[in-house]
């Protein structure tokens, strides 16, 4: 009896499948399937929003059950690694793209091109897909690209003679920047403060690196970039800014830089995102009711591009956040197709619009931007323009970088560049010494012929 029933069921399934296939020219399976997703709080209340999107998604695909495991922001990477190493990776995980190599190396990342719903890949900005590509293989879909540069106190900048509007729409040169922070530095105020202590040093290298034309770990012809002349220029510039006293000669904690901006103790700060406009406005509002930072002054926040040195190409540092499908014990081809249906759903349209919008960013797919057109941000016109300009300046990593290369680059960053940069800031090493150390290590790891030693223009 049971057997008969099962056979009947199977028959109905096959029949209905072929009916659908005939109707749409596309196979839509209605086999029950469960998809797991590990979701860190990418934006406030992300899991709550996610539940809403799942309901919408289930109207289209009632047979696909989505199991959400909320995660925490700070420890998501350790949790994800443990799950992956145990062979129990979630079907979908969220990552910052520079860590992609780790999952490719572990053998849990999946080439999505074969499983992507027909015709959907075109929705995503091709330039951004580069972040999820290693070895010319596409491993995931982008959620947003966080543009990271500088922010400033508008009144102070204008007092220092900076044409803020012009900088926001056209960018500025390093000389103009240097002049501004020189004028902006007084007894109680630094012209420039960048969070660069402890673990934030990595951000400093990446973001301020764009000043010297360093947009990625590798050049377009796949040579390691931090051995170039640009790097030496960058290090010398940092040395000069610090020794001139325009920037603190000590490492600054992440929290401190915003406090300094909000209390008028610095003119320009980094790293800064467009979203900080909301943070600063909240603080301004708190001055009246006592919830603001002690000693706060009213600040009009302006989002600024990084200045650019002579001969270098202006870029903006972007950090892509993406969802990846991952391999676990249950992974089959059919399952992966279902996984990609949902993954594509939360990375595009309304969900993408909301997620990016909450970060004061525009979506990186066509459907997301369309959905965003109806949303309004509490953002000043100038900042919106500067943010849009920054987005257009973001350069994805060159295609063709292998997982191994990216792994070595990450290790050199963590074990050589970051610690040496901290020493440089503390005045314990010189730009030249630091540069030589990086070259020595990079030559040993990559081979000298794979390192760029000239100038990247």
């Amino acid at each position, binding site marked *: 009896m049971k057997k008969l029933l099962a056979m009947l069921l199977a028959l109905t399934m096959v029949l209905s499948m072929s009916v659908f296939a005939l109707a749409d020219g596309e196979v839509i399976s209605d086999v029950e399937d469960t998809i797991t997703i590990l979701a*860190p*709080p*990418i*934006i*406030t209340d*992300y899991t709550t929003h996610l539940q809403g999107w799942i309901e919408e998604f289930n109207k289209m695909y009632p047979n696909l059950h989505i*199991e959400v*495991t*909320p995660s*925490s*922001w*700070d*420890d998501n990477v*350790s*949790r994800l690694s*443990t*799950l992956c*190493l*145990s*062979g*129990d990776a979630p079907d979908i995980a969220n990552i910052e793209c520079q860590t992609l190599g780790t999952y490719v190396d572990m053998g849990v990342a999946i080439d999505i091109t074969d499983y992507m719903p027909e015709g959907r890949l075109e929705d995503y900005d091709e330039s951004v897909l580069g972040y999820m590509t290693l070895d010319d293989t596409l491993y995931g879909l982008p959620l947003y690209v966080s543009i990271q540069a500088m922010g400033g106190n508008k009144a102070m900048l204008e007092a220092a003679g900076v044409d803020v509007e012009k900088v926001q729409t056209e960018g500025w040169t390093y000389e103009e920047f240097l002049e501004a922070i020189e004028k902006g530095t007084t007894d109680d105020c630094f012209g420039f403060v960048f969070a660069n202590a402890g673990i934030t040093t990595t951000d400093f290298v990446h973001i301020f690196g764009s000043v010297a034309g360093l947009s990625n770990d590798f050049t377009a012809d796949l040579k390691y970039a931090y051995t170039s002349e640009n790097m030496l220029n960058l290090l010398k510039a940092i040395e000069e800014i610090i020794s001139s006293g325009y920037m603190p000669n000590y490492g600054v*904690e992440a*929290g*401190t830089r*915003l*406090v300094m901006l*909000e209390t008028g103790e610095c003119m320009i700060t980094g790293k800064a*995102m467009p*979203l*900080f406009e909301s*943070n600063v406005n*909240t*603080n301004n509002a*708190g001055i009246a*009711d*006592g*919830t603001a*930072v*002690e000693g706060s002054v009213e600040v009009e926040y302006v989002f600024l591009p990084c200045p650019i040195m002579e001969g270098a190409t202006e870029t903006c540092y972007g950090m892509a956040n993406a969802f990846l499908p991952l391999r676990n014990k249950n992974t089959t081809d059919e399952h992966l197709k279902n996984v990609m249906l949902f993954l594509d759903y939360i990375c595009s349209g309304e969900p993408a619009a909301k997620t990016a919008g909450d*970060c004061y960013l525009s979506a990186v797919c066509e459907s997301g931007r369309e959905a965003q057109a109806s949303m309004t941000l509490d953002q000043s016109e100038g900042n919106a323009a500067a943010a849009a300009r920054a987005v257009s300046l973001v350069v994805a990593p060159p295609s063709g970088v292998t997982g191994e290369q990216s792994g070595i680059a990450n290790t050199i960053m963590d074990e050589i560049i970051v610690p040496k940069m901290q020493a440089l800031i503390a005045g314990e090493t010189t730009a030249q010494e630091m540069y030589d150390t990086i070259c020595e290590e990079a030559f040993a790891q990559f081979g000298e012929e794979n390192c760029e030693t000239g100038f990247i223009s």
Partner: protein
Amino acid sequence: MAAKGLYSQHHHNPRMRLVRNLVLALILLSFAGVVLFPLVYMVSWSFGPNVKMSSSLYTVFPRKWTLDSYKAFFDFSPYSLRWLLNTFIMAAGTTVSNVIFASMAGYAFAKVRFPGNKFLFFLILVAMMIPYQVTQVPLYILLVNKFNMSNTYAALILPGCVTSYNIFLSKQFFSGIPTALIENAKVEGANQFRIFWSIILPMSKTVLAVMAINTFVGNWNTFFWPFLATTQDSMYTIQVALKTFKDASWTLLSPMMAGATISALPMFILFFTLQKYFLEGVTVGAVKG
């Protein structure tokens, strides 16, 4: 009272004793002030405003005192109280099983002669030296993949239910009990279980209390394993839940501190309940011979 004799009682000069004690108290208080500082920050900011913060706050006290954050903590999720209960069950379960089984093992390693005694104890010490980062993956494979135990109290309690640290601690204390005491009982016909139950345990309230409070606090504050073993917010422990108060760009500082303060309360209560045992002297630290 035991050990009082270390200090001169200054029987002939009570004022001298008073002065000495005052000086000691003053030193102890000022050092405690330094040690307690993070706690003061935690408690005072738990009365801060319930607003999202993007930057650290470099003052000891909030400018405006309110209870909003406590309310926010309980409103944050329907499971706020459940988190405390979960943590309590995990910490209490682990504590009880450690007090029973770790002390039994500690006693055996200290006072019972059996082949393999030394070797097994050595193994337990070595096990303590393995960094936790590399044991989490096999542990996860075992408990979650093989035993299918995620989101259960068993998964939270089992890995810590007898720890090397507690076996070592109790062994050190039991070593101090004169062997003659045990030999006498044996001659009178008592077996080892009887000896352990009616002679050893009553003498060891202090070490058991120390073990209990340390285990409880340790488990109450443990984060990474519960974070791996729970996937539903109804099964979170308080430490896992507190981490969700921070997202990519904001921190709910005051509700987080309110949660931390609330979560510290059960530990205070336990500490004060066990206080009286800390004051009972036991013979520990005997020298051979």
